[in-house]
């Protein structure tokens, strides 16, 4: 009866769990899943902004991992390897969703019309101070092109270093830094746009109220 219950894998070290999982040991698979599912699920959730899709993607990432685990030779950290799979799974999904087979370069180097950051930061000086919260930042992140989003989530949310992101995303460290900068600049623009829209709404509401009283 207890077959599918959580098997007590105790403090089984990751390296040992990997070795046993390579032999097909069920408990070792579960141990690896328990060790890493939180980060992978969070990554997927931040990337797609939808719990049902994030669950599917988490399952798919681990499935791919376990299918390939016999080939893992430890050249990179296990978590880096897993995250690379997860990011690829998410990017594939986003590509399918957008209905085209765009390259990773296109996903990380959008032109300005399709959402790349402007080359300057002129314009009215609205202050973001106090207006950044979880909800509006997530809303802005949802609008980022997938490549920017991946680097931003990996670096600023999950705390990966640029050398790790370069490995995960199969790009150079310089590229990772540049994508992150562009992502933050684009987020700033999006937050400013939201702030301006909110200000317009407030003005409209205020003038309607004044007009109503006259």
């Amino acid at each position: 009866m207890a077959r599918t219950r959580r098997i007590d894998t105790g403090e089984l070290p990751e390296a040992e769990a990997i070795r046993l999982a390579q032999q097909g040991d069920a408990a070792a698979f579960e141990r690896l899943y328990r060790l890493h599912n939180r980060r992978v699920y969070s990554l997927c959730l931040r990337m797609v902004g939808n719990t049902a899709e994030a669950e599917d993607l988490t399952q798919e990432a681990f499935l791919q991992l376990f299918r390939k685990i016999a080939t893992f030779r430890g050249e990179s950290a296990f978590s880096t390897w897993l995250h690379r799979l997860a990011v690829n799974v998410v990017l594939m999904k986003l590509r399918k969703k957008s209905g085209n087979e765009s390259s990773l370069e296109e996903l990380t180097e959008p032109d300005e019309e399709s959402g790349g950051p402007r080359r300057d930061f002129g314009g009215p000086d609205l202050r973001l101070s106090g207006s950044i919260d979880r909800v509006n930042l997530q809303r802005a992140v949802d609008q980022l092109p997938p490549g920017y989003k991946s680097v931003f989530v990996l670096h600023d949310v999950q705390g990966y270093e640029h050398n790790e992101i370069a490995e995960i995303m199969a790009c150079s460290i310089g590229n990772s830094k540049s994508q992150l900068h562009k992502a933050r600049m684009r987020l700033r623009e999006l937050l400013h746009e939201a702030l301006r829209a909110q200000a317009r709404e407030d003005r409209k509401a205020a003038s309607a109220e004044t007009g109503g009283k006259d």
Partner: protein
Amino acid sequence: MATTSCREFLAYLEPWMEGERSPDAQAHVRNCPHCSSVIKDLEMIRTEARSWSASEQEAPERVWTLLRAQLEQEGLIRETIPARAGGSAQAAAPRTGWFAGLFPRLPRPVLAGAYLTALVAIAFALSGPVNKRVNEARWLKGTQISTSPLSAQLNFAEQNSNSYVTRSNPVVAASLHQNLAIVDNYIALCEKSVSEEPQNEVARDYLYEAYQQKADLLTQMTERGENVQ
């Protein structure tokens, strides 16, 4: 508006955020409210994003359940090496917790009664004669006896949860209902497997697991509904 020197500062901005601050860039930021405001914005974005990692959640248990089922189906995993499995007592321990946690709001006598029913049903099925067909029929009946109270309680809980969740955000409600439909399909599949192979321990286990998932989801729906009140 951006000035020429602000445009030049753009080249310094990326390294600045990485902690590389040249004297030229520092001098510009000191004297330019616009650029110092940009830096403040970017730092705020980074700080807010960092705070998200504190609220990372585990994937719902159904993700592992479905993943494991897929791994078994593909023949990628085999049962745990017995010497390291941690003993049956440890493995069985969460099952009691699961049942107790299934309906935290139900009175304990009801829980105890349902649990007893399940135990009696299983014991009854196990004590049957060796004859395979008779045994299978008893297993099936036993499983039905043990699961029908759960099923009825889940249906009752679903009605309550529905009334709660309709008061919450329509997007959240739609997502929860979608998840509920997925779990219901999963339960139907598990029930079919159990009826086809009543003695299959794994099939029965998945059925219980599916009920657990539904219970978790209903609890979540109720909580969401309560939070918006």
